[in-house]
């Protein structure tokens, strides 16, 4: 039957469901077009489930395009907290005529499909799906005849239908909408009306023929909903960032834009003056140049970018390494190589960032897994950068940066900012000598002074060319060796300063090692391995490069370690291979996922069980 011909009556018809209900364990996919305003409806859905205390996660899959192209929103609710992406869709909301057929075709038999009967789509509806048709467009039109408004409201109508089908609490939907539209009461009322339309239509016409249901839980106390980019922005603002140089690039743009908003809100003094300076640069080379110039002059400076920007920063990154200038670079990774898939997620820049720049350069990286950690690590990044006098790359990804995450609320950082080894005039008076690049403390980290320091010993000359411990130009082999070996030593010291890994080690032979957003799927993955294949695996989450010594120790305790990488080449595994003692290498296996979609547990479970011969 062609969709065009479906009668309202037929849409909810059939036997009412009589099996076991599937409570708080399902995934929804909403197919729309981008620019159609479905984001609000999806957020209301997410917020409603969140407010009902059920663990939930939502992810946008959107095109690199401004308007009119297909977009999907996937939502996962799970009582055990497995809120990562799930490959299988339990409930499809089909709103986009362009992708209607392929969306429908992609589903497993028995999937629930809620669709818009007002769509003009040729072709047959599958009869092995559980179908619910609703005239979304018409219902939205009943709320407002305005064409533009109607388009937006159409999305709210499906929230109404879902409210009925899943058993969402209308009071929570109501609250979520009011929150979403904040001060705009009229808009909120219209949207609520649209939801009601959908709800009432569904109540009247749809016989519930599936088991998907929500039940209130109490899992979200003390939690917030936030995008990772906003979290990182808050982290920077609460940890003393003063200088931002940047150039827009998806998916990092919103990190800087949020930083600017928070700065304006939180960092303007009573006289209206700002404790920060932000400049939109002409490109990434200039952006990182500003960061390095500011870091050299003593400021906490940052930029945010993605792969192409990182590549462009390569020359400057080598300058910072060799001249030992601090700075923080948020790399919100997207799919490469080259422009790649700018609106898809990956962890593909580890190798190129670790070795960013020619000639024996090495860089420091942090790997936040969720908004809370993005907030915390933004702080650690500034501390580390100033402590180590290096650039610190915070390796976010699009999934973390641009999706809404349910996260633990952030804890106020009350440790003082670590401004590193900076000598004031008074210090110099006391010490009586200063050699910018000398290892005084035996940790490979020298002391520095800031421009403006009037002590006669303070001024030194910084150069990316060869220099000796006193910062004088030198091409002497022994001077070169001294600086280079001290830099190696500094990176060894860094192992003690970077965030320790998190692990759960029950003494199993097998372990999984993951980092960043992959973590979200790991509990579920380990659960699947245990439940379905009897494989008990320990777990370690790497949080920084260079690796803490405990990463080595963890691997040493295991026989086989599956390294989860969201890239083609197993880049974390490669970095581990280069870092571990040679006799540990045979332990490492790769479990890869690299198609641009957020990681799902099943992919990793499959990769591991196959290698375990199950």
């Amino acid at each position, binding site marked *: 039957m062609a969709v065009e011909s479906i009668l309202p009556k037929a849409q909810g018809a059939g036997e009412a469901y009589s099996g076991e209900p599937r409570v708080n364990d399902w995934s929804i996919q909403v197919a729309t077009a981008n620019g159609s305003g479905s984001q609000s409806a999806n957020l209301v859905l997410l917020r409603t489930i969140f407010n009902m205390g059920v663990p939930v996660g939502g992810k946008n899959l959107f095109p690199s395009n401004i308007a009119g192209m297909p977009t999907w929103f996937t939502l996962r609710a799970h009582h055990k907290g497995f809120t990562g992406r799930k490959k299988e869709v339990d409930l499809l909301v089909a709103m986009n005529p362009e992708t209607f057929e392929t969306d429908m075709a992609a589903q497993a038999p028995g999937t629930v499909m809620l669709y818009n009967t007002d769509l003009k789509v040729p072709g047959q509806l599958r009869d092995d799906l559980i179908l619910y048709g609703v005239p979304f467009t018409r219902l939205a039109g009943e709320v407002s005849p305005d064409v533009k408004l109607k388009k937006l409201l159409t999305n709210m109508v499906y929230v109404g239908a879902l409210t009925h089908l899943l058993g969402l609490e209308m009071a929570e939907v109501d609250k979520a909408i009011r929150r979403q539209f904040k001060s705009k009461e009229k808009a909120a009322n219209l949207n609520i009306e649209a939801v009601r339309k959908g709800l009432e239509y569904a109540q009247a016409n749809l016989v519930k023929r599936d088991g998907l249901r929500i039940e209130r839980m109490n899992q979200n106390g003390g939690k917030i909903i936030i995008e990772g980019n906003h979290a990182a922005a808050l982290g920077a603002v609460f940890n003393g960032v003063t200088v931002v140089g940047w150039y827009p690039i998806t998916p990092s743009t919103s990190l800087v834009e949020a930083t600017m908003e928070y700065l304006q809100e939180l*960092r303007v003094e009573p006289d209206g003056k700002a404790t920060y*300076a932000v400049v939109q640069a002409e490109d990434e080379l200039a952006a990182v140049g500003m960061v390095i110039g500011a870091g050299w002059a003593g400021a906490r400076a940052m930029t945010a970018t993605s792969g192409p920007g990182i590549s462009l920063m390569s020359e400057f990154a080598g300058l910072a390494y060799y001249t030992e200038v601090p700075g923080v670079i948020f790399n919100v990774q997207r799919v490469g190589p080259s422009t790649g898939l700018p609106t898809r997620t990956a962890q593909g820049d580890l190798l190129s960032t670790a070795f960013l720049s020619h000639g024996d350069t090495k860089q420091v990286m942090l790997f936040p897994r969720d908004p809370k950690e993005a907030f915390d690590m933004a702080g650690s990044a500034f501390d580390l950068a100033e402590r180590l006098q290096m650039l610190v790359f915070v390796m976010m990804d699009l999934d973390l940066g641009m999706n809404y995450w349910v996260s633990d609320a952030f804890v106020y950082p009350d440790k003082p900012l670590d401004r590193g080894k900076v000598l004031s005039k008074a210090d110099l008076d006391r010490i009586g000598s200063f050699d910018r690049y000398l290892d005084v403390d035996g940790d490979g980290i020298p002391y520095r002074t800031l421009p*403006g320091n009037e002590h006669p010993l303070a001024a030194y000359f910084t150069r990316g060319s060869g220099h000796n411990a006193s910062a004088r130009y030198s091409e002497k082999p022994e001077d070169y060796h001294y600086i280079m070996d001290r830099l190696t030593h500094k990176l060894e010291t860094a192992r003690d300063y970077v965030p320790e890994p998190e692990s759960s080690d029950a003494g199993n032979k097998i372990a999984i090692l993951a980092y960043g957003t992959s973590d979200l799927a790991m509990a579920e993955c380990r659960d699947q391995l245990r439940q379905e294949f009897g494989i008990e695996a320990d777990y370690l989450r790497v949080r920084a490069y260079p690796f803490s010594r405990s990463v080595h120790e963890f691997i040493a305790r295991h026989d086989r370690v599956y390294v989860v990488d969201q890239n083609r080449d197993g880049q974390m595994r490669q970095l581990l291979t280069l870092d571990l003692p040679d006799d540990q290498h045979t332990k490492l296996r790769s479990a890869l996922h690299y198609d641009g979609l957020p990681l799902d547990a099943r992919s990793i479970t499959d990769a591991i069980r196959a290698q375990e011969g199950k």
Partner: protein
Amino acid sequence: MAVSSAPQTTNRAGLSKNDYKGAPSTLCSGCGHDAITSQIINAYYNLGIKPWEVAKVSGIGCSSKSPTYFLNRAHGFNGVHGRMPSLATGVAMANHKLNIIGVSGDGDSAAIGTGQFVHTMRRNTPMVYIIANNGVYGLTKGQFSPTADAGSKSKGGRANEQRPIDICAMAIQLGATYVARGFSGDPKQLLTLIEGAIAHKGTALLDVISPCVTFNNHEGSTKSYAYAKEHEIRIHELDLIPHFEPIEVVGEFEPGQRREVRLHDGSFLRIHKLEREFDPTSRSQALALCVQAEERQEFLTGLLYAETDRQDLISGLNVVDEPLATLPDERVRPSKAALDKIMAELM
């Protein structure tokens, strides 16, 4: 300050000339860049600016080595090729109390650094920006740079085919607020132009023709010392009256033959008009003059353009009075209450 008083051993900051010197130059002897260095030293000395309140920034090239050779007591940063302006911008953002001086070359700023040059002019980043312009890449041994004149000959005898970039015309076009051309062989004027640049608030761009005696000083080159010496046309004579010196009454000029440009620190540049009727506060006159000079192949020096009422980048950012770099924790970390409020809103 070309109109200077009797010789003295210290300046108003109580410092001697020695306090403004740098390491001995390692450039070729006779290199124009060293002549610029001398006038930079003189200018900071004359104006009595404390060297540790200066930050020196440069790119890569023979010219970019210069900051090592002046103001030893100022911090210096010799960055990467063509990217001095972004470093300088970062320094200005971090600590707007510093007097920033950037030294670059024609290759550094008009080839690889074009983008940063252009956008720094546009932003009016407060700094003195000196381009030691010799028409070649000195450090890589004499290739034509983008400022080489069409038809100018290389040491090997090849004629340049490309149209030159006129650094001053570009700067004026883009919005720089103090644009001048000097010549390393004309130290008196150069000194005044640098002093004026230091006194200016905003981007002060100085294009200084500075012959490369090793690779571009031959017959047929339009950037040789001899050529420049012979062809230099000063569009006016200049004096800087520093803000801390009483204005002397000078009566030797015809009325209408003199005007003053008041600079931000209260100093002013007194301009004695020469041949041309030319107002350096008019952007269109300045541009027209440049086009004309290019057409006539004239080598003009002097203050080409000054715009003293435009806001610079840092003023536009409206930052607190103290350097951002060293604000105490409590001024750069909002309160716990602020975070709690945000968390509550997100719950």
